[in-house]
């Protein structure tokens, strides 16, 4: 393939399966003799389980086994990195590290029997003091050490400048703010679930995962089984958002229990259990100080971050290194990341990890600076647009952020914004407009794809990647069709199985950017194999024609005087199919550029003048993500990302009780996610600037970009509507009442 991918707009190839309920998610897999497991969770934040009374549970109807730290299931090492989401394996000791940790597994004939028996287990604890309050823990914050290839405290100063504070003090105008947001939970529609089935010493694990291959490695290490004996199947994943990369307690215990019991075991987490058994996003406090000249030129940016981390490990929110690090041009830059280690469940990757929180602080601070300077927020950003990656002096492969601002402002009607805060009243609603920038790095990793010509006339395009609702089933079909000159309907995509062509999976918004280029390579190789078969098999009508004289054209092999379709060829030579695997990945030249997707959000917010509730009335998001493969699923990705940001801005936040470490709102009645009624019309526009320095498709990722900056855009609009600057998320009505 030459040139960028052509944008198409097609329906999801798995759409019918999903709307008819025929798509089989992890918990839907029909397996014979299935037993059901139910996890037991700790009800203290820190201490030791002294004893567990399982007598009543064991004699409860249908119960097959009750596993505890005292009647454990053997698990070995976890394998690192990218393995288990916490630094220990479940049930291997009696330690309690946080409220809601797995301390047992009840297995019974039915789910209800297991759940009822679980309620009969009594745990006796030796309780130790726990540190669970993020705010109280700030003074204990520590340096996490280098991450993302750079030190946690990173500074660039102009010649002759002694410190960032000196640069700020010398600035003509400065603004400073402290921004906070609570911990958050991914809340994928499909709860975490798995079915573990052993046969002849080999394990088949059905589980919703973003990476079948990483899960194989983790399970192999934990179970002491060679990787070749483990197959992970995950054809459909009902949302991942980063929380289905690491392996959590349930598949480890399900597989170990299934091995011990000699029966397949299913474990489906309840919604409440997903809050502590699986990962979350750190709580974050940030301080941003900006120094600028009167004309709006930034001269100093100081961005300090405190993020919660678990004593059990995990991934903290790296807010400054993912945003202020490169988003604007400034002579003096100071980033400082600290972590607050607590006895809470471990944070993990969560959609736009770092950017989500960092953009809220930075993009709000920019709005505060614009207000201070009486400068339009769009103009302020245009004046500080960075053209080279600060400190590395490499240009971006393709950056059209300025166009995002201009096109977005035009589509949205930004010129109609009244810059005076609190000045627009429509009926009983104060109305305001706000905007913010979005950024997310272009990530790409090596990936393989298998292309197989089938005698039935279809072509399978397969890879061990994942579709989290992101559209990968469709992307494989679209790219396969494009590479082979066939209609999409003749491509059978396959994914979500660790036995398919090697692929790390779906994360870092890199699935399409990584897997897509390999489709063309594999198609090329499969065509070569098809031609080789055609000219070497004695039964072939093209037997002994020089391979160089045969060319492939839209499913047919063509010579100067003959033309034969591949189905006919394969049937004629009695071939079950011809296949080839192709691999593509970033080359060494990748270091010569910075790769980033950008975007701009514009929104209108209404705040009730009496009761203070903030409501969105419309949004426009313009995306510079390189080439777009399938406009339909791409738009869904951006809309989903924006809605994720709306939750961050207005609704979401875990409430950890300082007395107990319990998440007081760990359920869907109390942990509020946006519902349809909260979502306004969202206008998504893609710029069309293929990034051919990034990959042959010209496509960067868009899965996470949509979330970045939304909270700031909304907060900035709330300020414009009311004159109130809310620096603590979520922006709820109680913060807007007089």
């Amino acid at each position: 393939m030459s040139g960028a991918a052509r944008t198409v707009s097609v329906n999801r190839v798995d759409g019918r399966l999903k709307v008819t309920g025929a798509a089989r998610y992890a918990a839907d897999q029909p397996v014979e003799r299935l037993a059901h497991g139910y996890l037991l969770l700790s009800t203290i934040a820190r201490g030791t389980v002294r004893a567990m009374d399982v007598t009543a549970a064991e004699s409860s109807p249908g119960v097959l086994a009750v596993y505890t730290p005292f009647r454990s299931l053997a698990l070995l090492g976890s394998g690192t990195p990218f393995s288990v989401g916490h630094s220990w394996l479940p049930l291997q000791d009696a330690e309690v590290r946080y409220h809601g940790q797995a301390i047992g597994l009840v297995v019974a004939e039915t789910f209800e029997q297991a759940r009822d028996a679980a309620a009969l287990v009594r745990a006796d604890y030796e309780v130790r003091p726990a540190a669970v309050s993020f705010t109280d823990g700030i003074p204990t914050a520590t340096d996490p050490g280098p991450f993302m290839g750079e030190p946690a405290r990173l500074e660039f100063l102009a010649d002759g400048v002694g410190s960032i504070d000196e640069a700020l003090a010398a600035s003509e105008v400065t603004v400073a703010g402290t921004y906070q947001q609570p911990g958050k939970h991914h809340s994928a529609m499909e709860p975490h679930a798995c079915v573990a089935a052993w046969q002849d010493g080999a394990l088949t694990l059905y589980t919703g995962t973003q990476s079948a291959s990483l899960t194989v490695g983790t399970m192999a290490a934990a179970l002491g089984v060679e990787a070749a004996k483990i197959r992970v199947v995950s054809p459909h994943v009902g949302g991942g958002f980063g929380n289905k990369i690491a392996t959590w307690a349930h598949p480890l215990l399900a597989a170990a229990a299934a091995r011990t019991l000699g029966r397949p075991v299913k474990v489906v987490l309840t919604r409440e259990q997903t809050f502590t058994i699986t990962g979350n996003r750190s709580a974050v406090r940030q301080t941003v100080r900006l120094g600028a000249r009167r004309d709006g030129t930034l001269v100093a940016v100081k961005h300090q971050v405190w993020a919660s981390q678990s004593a059990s490990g995990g991934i903290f929110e790296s807010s400054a290194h993912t945003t202020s690090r490169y988003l604007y041009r400034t002579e003096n830059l100071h980033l400082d990341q600290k972590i607050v280690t607590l006895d809470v469940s471990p944070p993990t990757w969560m959609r736009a990890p770092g950017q989500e929180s960092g953009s809220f602080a930075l993009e709000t601070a920019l709005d505060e600076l614009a207000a201070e300077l009486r400068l339009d927020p769009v103009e302020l950003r245009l004046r500080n647009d960075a053209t080279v990656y600060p400190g590395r002096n490499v240009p971006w492969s393709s950056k059209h952020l300025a166009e995002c601002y201009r096109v977005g402002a035009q589509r949205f009607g930004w010129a109609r914004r009244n810059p005076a805060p609190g000045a627009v009243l429509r009926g009983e609603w104060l109305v305001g407009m706000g905007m913010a920038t979005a950024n997310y790095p272009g990530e790409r990793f090596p990936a393989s794809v298998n292309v197989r010509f089938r005698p039935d006339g279809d072509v399978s395009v397969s890879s061990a990647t994942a579709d989290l609702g992101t559209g990968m089933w469709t992307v494989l079909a679209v790219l396969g069709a494009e590479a082979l000159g066939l209609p999409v309907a003749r491509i059978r995509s396959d994914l979500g199985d660790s036995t398919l062509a090697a692929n790390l999976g779906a994360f870092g918004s890199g699935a399409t950017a990584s897997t897509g280029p390999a489709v063309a390579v594999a198609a090329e190789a499969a065509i070569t194999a098809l031609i080789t078969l055609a000219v070497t098999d004695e039964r072939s009508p093209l037997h002994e024609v020089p391979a160089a004289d045969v060319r492939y054209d839209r499913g047919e092999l063509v010579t100067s005087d003959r033309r034969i379709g591949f189905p006919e060829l394969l049937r004629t030579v009695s071939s079950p199919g011809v296949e080839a695997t192709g691999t593509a990945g970033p080359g060494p030249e990748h270091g010569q550029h910075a790769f980033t997707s950008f975007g701009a959000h514009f929104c209108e917010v209404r705040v009730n003048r009496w009761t203070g509730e903030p409501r969105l009335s419309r949004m426009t998001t313009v995306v510079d993500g390189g080439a777009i493969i399938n406009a339909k699923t791409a738009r869904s990705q951006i809309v989903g990302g924006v809605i994720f940001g709306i939750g961050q801005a207005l609704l979401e936040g875990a409430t950890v009780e300082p007395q107990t470490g319990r998440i007081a709102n760990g359920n869907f009645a109390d942990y509020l996610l946006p519902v349809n009624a909260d979502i306004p019309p969202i206008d998504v526009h893609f710029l069309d600037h293929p990034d051919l320095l990034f990959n042959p498709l010209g496509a960067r990722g868009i899965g996470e970009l949509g979330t970045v900056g939304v909270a700031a855009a909304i907060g900035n609009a709330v300020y414009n509507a009311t004159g109130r600057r809310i620096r603590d998320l979520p922006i709820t009505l109680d913060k807007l009442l007089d």
Partner: protein
Amino acid sequence: MRPFDYTAAQSVSQALAGGGAGTAYLAGGTTLVDLMKLEVMTPRQVVDINRLPLRGVSADRDGLHVGALERMSDVAGHPLVTGGYPVLAQALLRSASPQLRNMASIGGNLLQRVRCGYFRDTSTGCNKRRPGSGCPAVDGENRGHAILGTSDSCVATHPSDLAVALVALDARVRLVGRGGTRDVRLADFYLLPGDTPEREHDLRPGELVTRVTVPALAWATRSAYLKIRDRQSYEFALASAAVALDLRGGVVRDVRVAVGGVGTRPWRLPAVEEALRGRAARPEVFEAAAALAVEAARPLTHNGFKTTLLRRTIVRALTNLVG
């Protein structure tokens, strides 16, 4: 979920015969089944009453009658309700989700249990669930909890929107038991928590709610239910107001005000009504009257904002109703 015996009653007398301590009546199941899964409720017997003839929406000289087994969505869309009592229709439509409203019954709605997180988590204490085990909400997470009618034993908010509207309209419930039939004003039916928060209402063991009667009130055509919450749908109220206005020549001739999301039971506000009667329907009058609503308020750590929010909710509801 604990194992239980299930029977389906074919008649009211059969249901009553099966009722009593340890038995739960099953109507829509939208509260009961949830709480059984959580083992917050562990009835030994479940009597399904869905086949009982407790249906129908009708009106006569006494007012509007609604069978206890009518589904919320059917009542919300009934012409007698939408035409005569907009406050009822709106309270129903702002409750729960369409799926739940299609299942949940009117009687079940009035008897639904509180949404306090401690009530629903059996790993914590709760005086309502386990008398004497304490109330962690008093010092715990209580943003959504009540500011009116609380006690040291319980601060849970009554969750029903419908009940707020019905209390505003002076509705009665008909209770049928083995000992006979009685009609009780809904406002009297609900009990304050006091020292016995496990007693939520005046329903005796084995009694059934069979119907709700709303007295005829011609000017209820000018009525509304305003529900304030963080998200726009599918959430319980932070504050709500059911208001009806009898407005003549810009003067409040009569008025009904009841509020939700703030009280341990649906909260009628007679002092606010009195302060409005005979006065001009103007913002400053509304604001002065609404201030009386929170005189007895006892805010907790996280719900102090509800005093302001409640006043504003009442003012906004009245203002919108004047138009």
